[in-house]
């Protein structure tokens, strides 16, 4: 990482030395969390935009992982030194939204910048996530992912399962896992992002509440509700699978993905953003499919929940900077740039136009499975499935991780763990409400 950063710094200095224009362009600082191949993508976006005009210069800077760059942005804001644009992961949305005066709503930036901006052109599950109760779009959707189901076709074939047919319901997943286990699999099914995939996304997919007040969209007094009978049933199911060796817990966050890529685990729920890495590294045939659901639940499947990040504009900058930001955002949301980004990274196309353009280009036919996340997301959202917007969300997710781990270790039943997670999380919500009154 240090090497890349040094290399980038050298590159930036060299570029600056050669590109000294007669008239200095307005510089726009952009802090982000995209590393590796995604860092190249971000740098290319900035480079292309800078080349397209001479008035503004977007300078992207890698600031560490999502939570680190968010903490850095907040610290910088407190020291009156914030960047113009800050990339914040979806979990930080409520924190940003309720920060009085620290951010400038993107709708406002676009309007003042005199740029055409139509929030309706975005996929509703995406724009809805970043829209305030008064209908104003607060941040610019940038890289959005969602949860999908991956399975190892070779393992399916070896176990006598149809490799062209993924299990679509949870009972089918259990049956397939049992067959895989009989065939010698030590890890038939695993999941990454326990909280995002199996609690948040599970809730919207089945159209049940994660929290009251439309999952927090309706106000600060929302409280957690993910200990409903359906949630308990799901975790009891997973606990039984775990006991029988059909589900194997592989750790927090995205840790489980390496167990799928190595071929150890045959079925896997993970981020659609992992597609490119799996395609590059997996030494077996695999496919991407829709998430399983419980068929007897009315309204299921609904739509999956959003992950990834959006771009926030920080307040207190000169008007010229905002004009530049508006130009840059308008460049980012053009269908061509959007479609190219979607195809390059595996993130969702966040506008309908970009989706249609990608479809027309035949990309989905050439790369089967890549349309799955889009299809899961562009369904109509309901009040319960628009997303989750809660304060202290980073800690709430940590609590869910801690409590659900007690289920796999056998220390708590599914009901006890979920009840405890809800009551501990609600205390944090009350705290956030008090702090942001």
């Amino acid at each position, binding site marked *: 990482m240090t090497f890349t950063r040094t290399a980038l710094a050298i590159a930036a200095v060299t570029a600056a030395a050669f590109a000294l224009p007669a008239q200095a362009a307005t510089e726009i600082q952009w802090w982000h969390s995209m590393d590796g191949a995604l860092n190249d993508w971000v740098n290319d976006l900035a480079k292309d935009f800078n080349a397209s005009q001479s008035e503004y210069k977007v300078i992207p800077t890698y600031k560490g992982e999502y939570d680190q760059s968010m*903490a850095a942005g907040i610290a910088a804001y407190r020291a009156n030194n914030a960047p113009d644009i800050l990339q914040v992961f979806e979990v930080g949305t409520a924190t940003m939204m309720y920060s*009085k005066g*620290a951010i400038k709503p993107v709708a406002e930036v676009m309007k003042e910048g005199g740029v055409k901006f139509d929030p309706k052109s975005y996929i509703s599950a995406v724009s809805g996530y970043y829209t305030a109760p008064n209908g104003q779009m607060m941040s610019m959707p940038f890289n959005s992912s969602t949860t999908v189901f991956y399975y190892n076709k070779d393992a399916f074939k070896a176990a006598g399962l149809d490799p062209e047919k993924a299990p679509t319901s949870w009972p089918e997943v259990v049956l397939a896992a049992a067959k895989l286990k009989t065939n010698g699999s030590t890890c038939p099914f695993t999941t990454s992002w326990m909280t995002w995939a199996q609690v948040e996304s599970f809730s919207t997919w089945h159209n049940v509440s994660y929290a009251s007040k439309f999952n927090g969209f309706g106000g600060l007094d929302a409280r957690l509700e993910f200990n409903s009978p359906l949630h308990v049933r799901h975790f009891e199911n997973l606990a039984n699978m775990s006991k029988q060796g059909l589900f194997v817990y592989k750790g927090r966050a995205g840790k489980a993905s390496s167990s799928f890529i190595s071929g150890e685990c045959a079925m896997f729920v993970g981020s659609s953003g992992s597609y490119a890495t799996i395609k590059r590294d997996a030494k077996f045939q695999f496919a991407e499919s829709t998430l399983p659901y419980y068929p007897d639940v009315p309204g299921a499947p609904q739509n999956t929940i959003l992950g990834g990040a959006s771009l926030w504009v920080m307040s207190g900058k000169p008007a010229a900077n905002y004009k530049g930001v508006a130009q840059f955002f308008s460049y980012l949301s053009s269908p061509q740039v959007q479609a190219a980004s979607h195809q390059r990274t595996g993130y969702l196309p966040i506008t309908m136009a970009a989706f249609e353009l990608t479809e027309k280009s035949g990309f989905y036919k050439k790369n089967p499975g890549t349309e799955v996340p889009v299809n899961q997301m562009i369904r109509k959202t309901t009040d319960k499935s628009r997303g989750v917007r809660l304060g*202290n969300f980073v800690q709430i997710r*940590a609590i869910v991780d801690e409590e659900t*781990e007690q289920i796999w270790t056998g220390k708590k039943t599914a009901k006890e763990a979920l009840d405890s997670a809800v009551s501990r999380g609600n205390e944090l919500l009350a*705290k956030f409400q008090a702090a*942001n009154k």
Partner: protein
Amino acid sequence: MEKRVFFRSNWLPWLLLAPQLAVVGIFFFWPAGQALVQSLQQQDAFGTSVTWVGLDNFKALWNDATYLASFQTTVIFSALVTVLGLSIALLLAVFADRVVKGATFYKTILILPYAVAPVVSGLLWAFMFSSSIGVVTYALHKIGFDWNHLLNSNHAMALVVMAAVWKQISYNFLFFLAGLNSIPKALIEAAAIDGARPWRRFWTIQLPLLAPTTFFLLVINMVYAFFDTFAIIDATTQGGPGKATSTLVYRVYFDGFRGMDFGGAAAQSVVLMVIVIALTVVQFRYVEKKVQYA
């Protein structure tokens, strides 16, 4: 015999002390005061709305069963890190002290881990013991031991202790070796002539003479286990499974820097500060009395 310096003027001693006092003031009293103030406040991440909540943050901690449980975790963790770190380092130092050939090589090798950053050391151990790609996990599995620090809290504790001890051994080793070197050879030779075996020589001569070093290292290691290990815990277990390896300082780090709950984290650091002050008093009032300085 005590030497005393008398100053004729009143301001000169203060002037001479000023740089030191300024450093202590800026780097200790100011942040400590800020922590105290913040622990009585509830503020949003950006610091735009700040409300006084009195002792609410402390009350919340008191009512949080997981916070109380992390005291126990911290005690177990610190005791293991300190005892294991000191005894293994002492053993290595005694051996290295006897090596004649290639002593510098051994010493250099033993000191190397100290140059590794805590988070890197944590990652290293996390990789070796990873459930899917770890070499050690694989080897243990071959001999029929099912290692799983993701679900077994004893395994998780063992992992963070190993990573923390491994990192600290070099430091302890250096001091023990220096301590051993400063013991007059004549004493040991005299004992040998009197017929004392190596174990007895170590136990009755070397170890008592190392007491000041050991005491110093005891303090340093306690402080290390309390304050410098959050990066290791974050890289290996993130405090899990459940809260099994979440020590007090890891919680401060997580709630403050990751969760951005500044009031709660400040209250926790005030609690930590009180504990450390108490520990220091105990150590210097009672433990130090048993230490013989030559």
